[in-house]
Structure formats: structure tokens, C-alpha cells
């Protein structure tokens, strides 16, 4: 991977370069309060782009997997039915995507483009996507109490899956190219060659950063083992389930959740469209069949499902990573405090206790 150095004042020129190349660039902004969000960059808002800010709750996942997406149109005339697929193939760049969300997109790639069937809609969004990763290096603004990418090994600096990575070194930024497309940007005069001192500085900042995370003790490896082996007591799942309000919030903010439902809605007297909409395994209708039979009736069965799907070794092997990227959004939005870090901790404690007793009795 090639790296270059650029002046702090030139960082947003990367956005300009991408826009000149015909990309719709989305970047993070502050809302009116403390809320943050990704929005399309225009000439008017370009100067308000934030490099350092709390990661928006609404993940950039929606740029490859929209929360509502049109799949096809059905039209009826003279007894005939015409079915027309609806395709969108945007040329888009995400500027300022965090390392955790980058890992999320990589996870979606494995899921939607791997296995037996490729998802053409996902592929269309992904094909021309340019990813500019920003390393979370501002302890006060980038990293919050819930962040735990150091536990999932996805951050704070992504090692792969970006086109370009930017890291704040103070008065300068380091840019790392992850793909030929990213490297092509280095032709612009804003980039210059770096020195060994820049790399030392990067390492020093990262070393210091890792100490600044509040959540550093999520013992994923033990929990993955317990979940995979089915060692977790029903009682523990029930405790977790009892705290679930079934709002589905954890799923809707998750950069690695993939489930959707499909719905048909009218758009004219003889026309309707088929859309897919994000769905959540926390909701009781998720597995309910026509006629009312629901194989996953109890709340804790559904909670169990979410964590099993994310942490079981079988899926990790298939998708090359667990379906958790350590962004901490579920922990931030959950009213019952059963976000991923808490659950990992609850499982580790409860199952670890059982483990200990069983060993003692033998």
C-alpha cells in the first residue's frame, strides 16, 4: 500500500477531486443539536463537512443496502402482467466512513455477493462505490463510551477494504491507498511523499489511541466458543430476553445486519412496486407464518437468534468475520442495555461461572 502526506487545509480537496470525477460524495455533518448524519455534499454544505465527529447512528450501510429499496414494478393492462426490474447504479463515494462501518460493508459483501446467489441490487450499489476511510483519532469527538472496535479487531484504523484512508497527524494528514483507484488520486499535487517520521507519528498516535477506549474487555473469543457449543444456559438467554423491549433498534443501527422483508405497494390504479425493507429478528412477526404459527415465539428465543447469528463459529467461518464490527451503536440505542458489549459480558460471566462449577465438581 502506498502512502502520501497532505496538508490539513487540503483534506477537503479530496472531496472536490471525487466530485470532479463524477462521484456523488456523501460525508458526515453535524445536525442542529449533537446529532450527526451522512449527507450528499453540495457546493453549499461542502465547507461544513466534519472530519472528526461522533459516528452517526444511522449507519452508511444504507448507501449499499437502502432501508427501503425498490426491486421491481408490476403493471397490469389488458389481462397481461408486465414485470420490470428497477435498477439503480449510482457512482458514489463515502467520505469519512469509520473503520467499523467499513468492516460492516465488507461483511455485507461477503453475505450478499457470496454463497449460492449474488444479490444484483447490492452489487449495483457496490460496483462504483469509492470508500474514503477516516481513522478515529480524536479521542473527544470520534470515540465514545460505547465504541469497542479494539475488541472486534476492526479499528480504530482499518487495515483493508478502503480505497483511501486518511489519518490526522496534527497539521498534516497521512493518506493510504488501498486500491488502484485510491492510488490514482495521488497524481494530484496536494499529495507529497512522506518521511519515516510520519510513520512513527502514526504508530505513536495509534498506540496511545488504543488506551483511550472505555470498553476494552469484551471477551469475544470465549463468548463465541460458548455460543457455538450451545453452552449458554436457557436462564441466561431469558435474562437477556427479559431486558429486550422488542423495538428492533439494535438491528436498524447495525452496520452488519442483513435481514429484510419484502412488501408490495400500489403506485397507480394498475401498477404496484415491490420493495424490500430492513427487518429485525427482535420483532415477533419476523418468523410468524400465515395461519399464526410462530416457531420463535418467546422473546428470548429471538434475542438468542440475534447473538447466535452474529457470533456462532459456523457463520464466522462462512463470512470470514463475526457479524459485529464493534461500532457500539446497539449499546448506545438499547434501552434495556443489552447491546453487544453487555451481552458478551453477561454470557461470559454466567457461562464462565457454570464452567468453573462444573470443573470443580469433576
Amino acid at each position, binding site marked *: 500500500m502506498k502512502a502520501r502526506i497532505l496538508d490539513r487545509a487540503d483534506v477537503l480537496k479530496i472531496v472536490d477531486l471525487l466530485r470532479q470525477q463524477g462521484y456523488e460524495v456523501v460525508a458526515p455533518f453535524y445536525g442542529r443539536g449533537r446529532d450527526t448524519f451522512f449527507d450528499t455534499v453540495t457546493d453549499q454544505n461542502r465547507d461544513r463537512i466534519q472530519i472528526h465527529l461522533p459516528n452517526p447512528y444511522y449507519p452508511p450501510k444504507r448507501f449499499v443496502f437502502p432501508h427501503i429499496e425498490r426491486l421491481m414494478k408490476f403493471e397490469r393492462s389488458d*389481462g397481461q402482467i408486465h414485470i420490470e426490474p428497477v435498477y439503480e447504479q449510482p457512482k458514489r463515494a463515502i467520505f469519512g466512513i469509520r473503520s467499523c462501518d467499513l468492516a460492516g460493508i465488507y461483511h455485507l459483501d461477503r453475505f450478499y455477493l457470496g454463497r449460492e446467489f449474488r444479490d444484483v441490487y447490492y452489487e449495483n450499489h457496490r460496483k462504483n462505490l469509492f470508500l474514503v476511510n477516516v481513522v478515529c483519532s480524536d479521542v473527544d469527538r470520534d470515540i465514545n463510551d460505547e465504541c469497542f472496535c479494539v475488541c472486534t479487531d476492526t479499528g480504530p484504523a482499518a487495515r483493508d477494504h478502503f480505497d483511501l484512508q486518511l489519518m490526522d497527524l496534527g497539521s498534516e494528514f497521512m493518506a493510504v491507498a488501498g486500491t488502484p483507484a485510491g492510488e490514482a488520486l495521488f497524481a494530484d499535487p496536494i499529495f507529497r511523499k512522506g518521511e519515516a517520521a510520519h510513520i512513527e507519528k502514526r504508530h505513536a498516535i495509534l498506540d496511545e489511541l488504543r488506551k483511550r477506549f472505555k470498553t476494552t474487555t469484551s471477551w469475544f473469543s470465549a463468548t463465541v466458543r460458548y455460543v457455538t457449543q450451545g453452552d449458554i444456559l436457557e436462564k441466561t438467554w431469558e435474562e437477556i430476553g427479559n431486558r429486550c423491549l422488542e423495538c428492533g433498534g439494535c438491528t436498524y443501527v447495525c452496520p452488519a445486519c442483513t435481514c429484510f422483508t419484502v412488501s408490495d405497494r400500489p403506485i397507480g390504479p394498475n401498477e404496484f412496486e415491490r420493495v424490500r425493507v430492513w427487518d429485525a429478528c427482535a420483532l415477533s412477526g419476523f418468523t410468524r*407464518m400465515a395461519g399464526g404459527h410462530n416457531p420463535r415465539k418467546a422473546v428470548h428465543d429471538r434475542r438468542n437468534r440475534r447473538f447466535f447469528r452474529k457470533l456462532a463459529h459456523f457463520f464466522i467461518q462462512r463470512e470470514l468475520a463475526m457479524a459485529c464490527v464493534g461500532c457500539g451503536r446497539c449499546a448506545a440505542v438499547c434501552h434495556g442495555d443489552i447491546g453487544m458489549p453487555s451481552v458478551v459480558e453477561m454470557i461470559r460471566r454466567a457461562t464462565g461461572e457454570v464452567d468453573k462449577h462444573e470443573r470443580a465438581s469433576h
Partner: protein
Amino acid sequence: MSAPATENVYLPKTAVLERVVSEIAEVKTFYWHFEDSAEQEAFRQFRPGQFAQVSLFGVGEFPTSLPPSPTEGETFFTVRQVGSCTSALHRLQPGDKFAVRGPYGNGFPMEDYYGKNLVFVAGGIGLIPLRSCIVYALKNRNKYKSIQIFHGAKTPKELMYVPNLHEWEQTPGVECYLTVDRATDGWNGNVGVVGSLFKKPGVQVPVENTTAFVCGPPVMFRFVIKDLLEMGFSEKNIVSTLERYMKCGVGKCGHCCIGVAYVCVDGPVFTYEQIKKLGEDI
């Protein structure tokens, strides 16, 4: 925009309803074909036990099993009217258009059972997916040893595919046993749950070198499995097909997951050995 190179697996193809046959109350069989004959030809290569996704204009899409055997010329679904999509299908008239995609799922590995005895146990409309295997096995009769069919329903009026049942009862080399929970309408056959047929005098269910196909409501399934295991069947020689709420049929939407399996791509056919390991209610 030009069509992308990747096939759109979500895109159904237009089908025409040919005729409708009433089976039992609220259950009808819908004979249909694709508008496009090449599409029809490709679809007809399905395996027994696979399923299809059916789209109804303005209502939605639902998964349904394929009761015909690929050895038969016709394509049809047998569907109970239970939700909005199935009700919309029931309202269609011959000549009406709808849309279908598939076939999906693994299906029964019928070739693996060559040289074996086959035992089919179907409760109620559980006979719908098994019909495909039965017809397939009868068409390839010399490839299999003994064939037994056990079918139970609540009342005589709820026995499925009655013309087929009569035909199977008359077919040499096939044993077909029927039972009902409640004898009405002058029924003089067996009364009791489907498992009660196994112990009837004269019925000899082979256990060695046998595959048992079980399909029916959850309660019936549990009891039949218990009976079969007691008779000495090993868990891997009991196969079934599962149903789940499903949106995509291609392993993406996540609704049909049971444990580590996606019913749509890893199933719907599983051995009881696999079903037990999935670790969730079926």
C-alpha cells in the same frame, strides 16, 4: 439502463392459471404454466421436495411446495387458503396471470435412496410435498424396494389427493394405508392417529435399509418421529421437509433461519438427525 450481467434472482416470470381443482375444504390445486415456454422447460427440471415463490399481483409473494413429480408433464401447486397471498391465489380464475420463480431448495436426494425401502408418512396437507416423491418413486419403481404410504387426516373428507390415493391402493407393489381421527361419512377404515397404522395387524414396516419420509403438522411430526425411533429407525434415515416464513427463497432475507441453516437454501429437506441439531422449535 442495460441489464446487469448478474442474474436477478428476485425477478419472477409471468405464469398463466390453467384450471383449478378442489381438494378438501380451503385447499385447491392450481394447474399453471409459464407464458414463456423456455422458462417452463427450465422450471420442469426441478427435484422432488423443492419449492417455488408465487407472486400475486398487488398482494405479495409466498413460498409453496411443488406437489408434481418432474416425471409428470404438468406443473401445479396445492395451496390452503390461509393468508392474504394464498387467498388472492384462490380468487384467480383460469386464464388469469400471476408470477412464479424457482425452483428453490435442496429437494429430496431420490437417487441416494435407490435400492432402499421407502416409507411415506403424511398427516393432512403434509401429503402435498410428499406427493412429488411418491409419484417419482412409482415412476422409477424398479429402483426402489418396498414402498409404503401412510396417510392420516382429521376426517375422511380431509384426505388429500383422493384420486391418487385410490390409484396407489390399486398399484401392485405399493402398500397404501389410510386413517382418520374421526370416522364420519360412513368411513369403515382405520380410526386413530397415523402412527396407529404402524401397529395394525398385517402391517410390516421394514426398518433395515429404509428411508422414512415424514411430513405433517408439528404435533403429528413429534409423535411419528417417536414411533419410528422406537421401531428402530436411525435418525439419519428419517427425512422431512420444513416450512418457514420466507421472503426471498435464496438465502438473503434471513426469515427462514433455524440455527445455522437457511431453510430455503440448506433445506427445506433435512434428516431428523440434522433437524435435532438445529436446536430450535420446528
